[in-house]
C-alpha cells in the first residue's frame, strides 16, 4: 500500500518544447491514496498512457516530481519503484508452463517452495487457470494468455502499486464481464494501490472508486462514477461519460432564463449574464429528456428512431439543434413531431466548456 503524489508533473516528447500545446501531459498535481482503486479515462491521445508511463518509470518527466509515500522516486527505475504492470497485449513466456509463468515474478524476487506454490494456485483459481497450470503457454488462446499476463501482474502481494494499461482489449466481450468483476473483487482482497488506464467507460467506472477523466493532456474531472454522470464539470466529461453522451446545446443565458434553438426556457437557478465573448451552452443527458404525452414542451421534429433492443434512441431536432432522447423499449413515439420536457434539476449550464453552478 503506497500513497502516490504527483507534484507539478508535466511531460513533452520534444526536448526543445516551446509552447504549452506541445505537452503530452500538462502540469498536473494529484494524489492517489494508499490502497485506492483509480482509473485514468480518456480518448486516445489524451495523455493517460503518458501519465501511467511516468508513474511506472518507463518515462522520465520533463518537469515535476513523483513521490511514493513522500519519497521522491522521479529518477528511479520501474524495478526500484517495485511496481507490477499489465499491458494491453499478453506478455508471457511461450515455452514455459502456465504455472512457471505465474511463478516467475515470485521466483525472480527470491521466493521458493510453498510460498510460491500457494500464491500461484490462489491466483490461478481466481482467474480460472487451474486446469491449464501444467500446459505450456504456447498454443493457448489470446484470452488465456492475457489472463496469464494479468496473473503475473497480480501474483506479488508486496508491490507498491499495480498499473494496468487497457488490459482487457484482447478479451472477448463475454469474458470481459467475468474478468472485470474478478479484478474488482481482487482489489477488495489485496488493498494494493491500483491504477487502471482505459478508454472504456464501463471498465473505468466499474473498477475504480475514483475516476480521473483526461482530455487533451489535462485532468478535467476527478470523481466517483455518480459525480461524473450527474454532475459533469466540463462538457467533455458530459460527452465522454454515458452512451450516447450528454446533449450540449448552444444557448443564450440571462439570469434565470435561457434561449435555446429559438425557444425560451426557465432555469432552476440564477446565472447572471455571462460575457458576450464567452461560449454558453446547456447540457442535458438523453436519459433526462421526456417525450411528453400531450405534445407540451419544446417542439421537436423526430428525425429517426434507432431501436437498440433494451431502449430506443430518438434523434430529434429542436430548430437547428440535434438532440438524442432515450426512451423505453416499449415506448410508442409520435411519427414526426413531439414535445420534449427537460427533467428539472438535470439541466446544467456551461461557460466556455466549464460548469457554472449558479445561485439560488
Amino acid at each position, binding site marked *: 500500500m503506497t500513497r502516490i503524489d504527483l507534484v507539478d508533473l508535466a511531460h513533452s516528447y520534444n526536448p526543445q518544447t516551446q509552447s504549452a500545446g506541445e505537452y503530452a501531459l500538462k502540469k498536473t498535481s494529484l494524489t492517489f491514496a494508499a490502497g485506492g482503486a483509480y482509473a485514468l479515462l480518456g*480518448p*486516445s*491521445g489524451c495523455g493517460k498512457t503518458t501519465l501511467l508511463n511516468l508513474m511506472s518509470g518507463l518515462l522520465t518527466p520533463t518537469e515535476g516530481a513523483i513521490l511514493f509515500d513522500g519519497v521522491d522516486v522521479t529518477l528511479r527505475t520501474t524495478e526500484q519503484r517495485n511496481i507490477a504492470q499489465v499491458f494491453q497485449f499478453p506478455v508471457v513466456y511461450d515455452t514455459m508452463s502456465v504455472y512457471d509463468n505465474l511463478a516467475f515474478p515470485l521466483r525472480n524476487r527470491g521466493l521458493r517452495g510453498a510460498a510460491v506454490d500457494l500464491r500461484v494456485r490462489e491466483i490461478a483459481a481466481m482467474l480460472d487457470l487451474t486446469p491449464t497450470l501444467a500446459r505450456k503457454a504456447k498454443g493457448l*488462446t*489470446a*484470452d488465456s494468455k492475457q489472463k496469464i499476463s494479468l496473473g503475473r501482474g497480480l501474483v506479488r502481494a508486496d508491490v507498491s502499486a499495480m498499473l494496468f494499461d487497457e488490459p482487457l*482489449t484482447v478479451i*472477448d*466481450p*463475454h469474458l470481459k*464481464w467475468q474478468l*472485470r*468483476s474478478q479484478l*474488482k*473483487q481482487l482489489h*477488495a482482497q489485496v488493498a494494493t494501490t491500483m491504477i487502471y488506464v482505459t*478508454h*472504456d*467507460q*464501463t471498465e473505468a*467506472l*466499474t473498477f475504480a472508486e475514483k475516476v480521473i477523466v483526461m482530455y487533451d493532456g489535462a485532468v478535467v474531472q476527478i470523481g466517483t*462514477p*455518480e459525480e*461524473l*454522470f450527474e454532475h459533469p464539470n466540463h462538457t467533455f466529461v458530459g*460527452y*465522454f*461519460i*454515458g*452512451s*450516447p*453522451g450528454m446533449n450540449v446545446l448552444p444557448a443564450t443565458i440571462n439570469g434565470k432564463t435561457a434561449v435555446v434553438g429559438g425557444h425560451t426556457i426557465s432555469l432552476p437557478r440564477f446565472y447572471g449574464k455571462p460575457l458576450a465573448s464567452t461560449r454558453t451552452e446547456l447540457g442535458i*443527458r438523453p*436519459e433526462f429528456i421526456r417525450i411528453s404525452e400531450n405534445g407540451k414542451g419544446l417542439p421537436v421534429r423526430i428525425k429517426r428512431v*434507432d*431501436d*437498440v*433492443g*433494451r431502449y430506443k434512441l430518438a434523434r430529434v431536432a429542436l430548430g437547428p439543434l*440535434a438532440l438524442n432522447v432515450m426512451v423505453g*423499449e*416499449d*415506448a*410508442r413515439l409520435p411519427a414526426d413531431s413531439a414535445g420534449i420536457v427537460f427533467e428539472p434539476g438535470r439541466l446544467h449550464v456551461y461557460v466556455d466548456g466549464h460548469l457554472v453552478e449558479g445561485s439560488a
Partner: protein
Amino acid sequence: MDARAAAGGQGLGGVTEHTMTLELRNVTKRVGSEMHVAGISLTLAPGTLNVLLGPTLSGKTTLLRLMAGLDAPTEGQVLVGGRDVTGTPVRRRSVAMVYQQFINYPNLTVYENIASPLRVAHIARAEIDRRVRETAGLMRLTALLDRYPLELSGGQQQRTALARAIVKRAELLLLDEPLANLDYKLREELREELPKLFAEIGAIAVYATAEPSDALLLGGRTATLSSGRVTQFGPTLEVYRRPVDRATAEVFSDPPMNFVAARIVGGKAHLPGGVVLPARGPLAGLADGDISLGFRANHLYLRQPSHDAVAVTATVAVVEITGSESYVHTIREGDRWVALAHGIHELNPGAPVEVYLDPYRMFVFGRDDRLVAAPNFAEAA
C-alpha cells in the same frame, strides 16, 4: 467532436449498380480434424447489410474468408449472381475487406492510400482523382488527404482503411470487427454512420462482430454463429426478440442472458427455492413438464416492474457501473444472474438483494433448448 453532419446527403454519383446475390450452399470448412464452420447456407441480397454475430472462435473470420475466396471450402459451394465461384481466387472476385487492425501504407498520404487499389487497377488519373475525393468526402477525410497515417487518430486511420475498401466499389464488402480497436466514442459515431454509408454504396456488406450492441445499432440482418454453425438468420431485431434457440439467445445477449430451470405444474412455473411464477404472458398455456426460462439483464429488476412480477432474494456478487447504469451480478440457488438497473447502485458483495422476475419478460425454452414462447413486446408495454 461532431463533424458527422458533413457526411450527410452526399451521393456517390456514377456508382456501379450492384445486382449480384451471394449464396453459400451447405459450406463446410475443416482444417485437419478441426471443424471451423459446418453446413452453412446463407443467401445475401444485393444492397443489404448483414451482421455475423458470434463469440471468438465461432467461425466468423473463417466464413468471411470463404466469402472472399481467400480460402476454399472443404465442402459446399459459393455462388455469386448464381454463378459458382467456389474455386475462383480472391483477386478475380469483386471483393474488398477491412480488418480489425487497420492496415494502411505508412509511407503514403491518405490520398495515396485511398487511391492505391485504383492505381493497381490502372484506372485513368482523372477518374482516380474524382473517386478518391468523393470517397474522402463521404468518410470525412477531405481535410486530411495530405496527411500520413501515423499523423492520424485511430478513428481517422480506420476511416482511411474503410475508404480504401469502399473506393474499389466491390460487389462484396467484408468487415472483420472493424471497430474493435477504437475508442467507444468513435465506435458510437461510426456505428451510426456505417449503415448510411452501406446504403449509399449499394454493395453486399458483411460485418463480423462479437458485440450484440454492434448488431443492434447497425440494424440490417443478423446471422448468429455458435460453434461454427449459423443458428438463425433474419432481421436483426427479430433475431434479438425471437431467438429460435438457447444458443442464439446466448450469442445475442451481453451481459449473458440469465437462465433458470423451471417445472410447469398445473400451468404455473415452479422455480428452485419454492418460487412460483403465474401463468402470464409467455408462461400462459404451457404444458406440464421441465423447461428453462431465459431473461435479459434489463429484465431482472431491482424495483417491482408490474404486479405480476415476483420478488426473490439473491446475493450480490459484484456491481459494475457504466456511465449511467449498474450491472448487479447476483447468485441465487446456484444460478448467476445479472440485473441491469438505471442509475448508480452501489451494493456490497455478499449482501442480500431483492430482485424481481417478470413473467411477461421471459423466454421459454424446451428441454431440447428450442424456443417455446417469447415476450410479446406490445403486451409487455
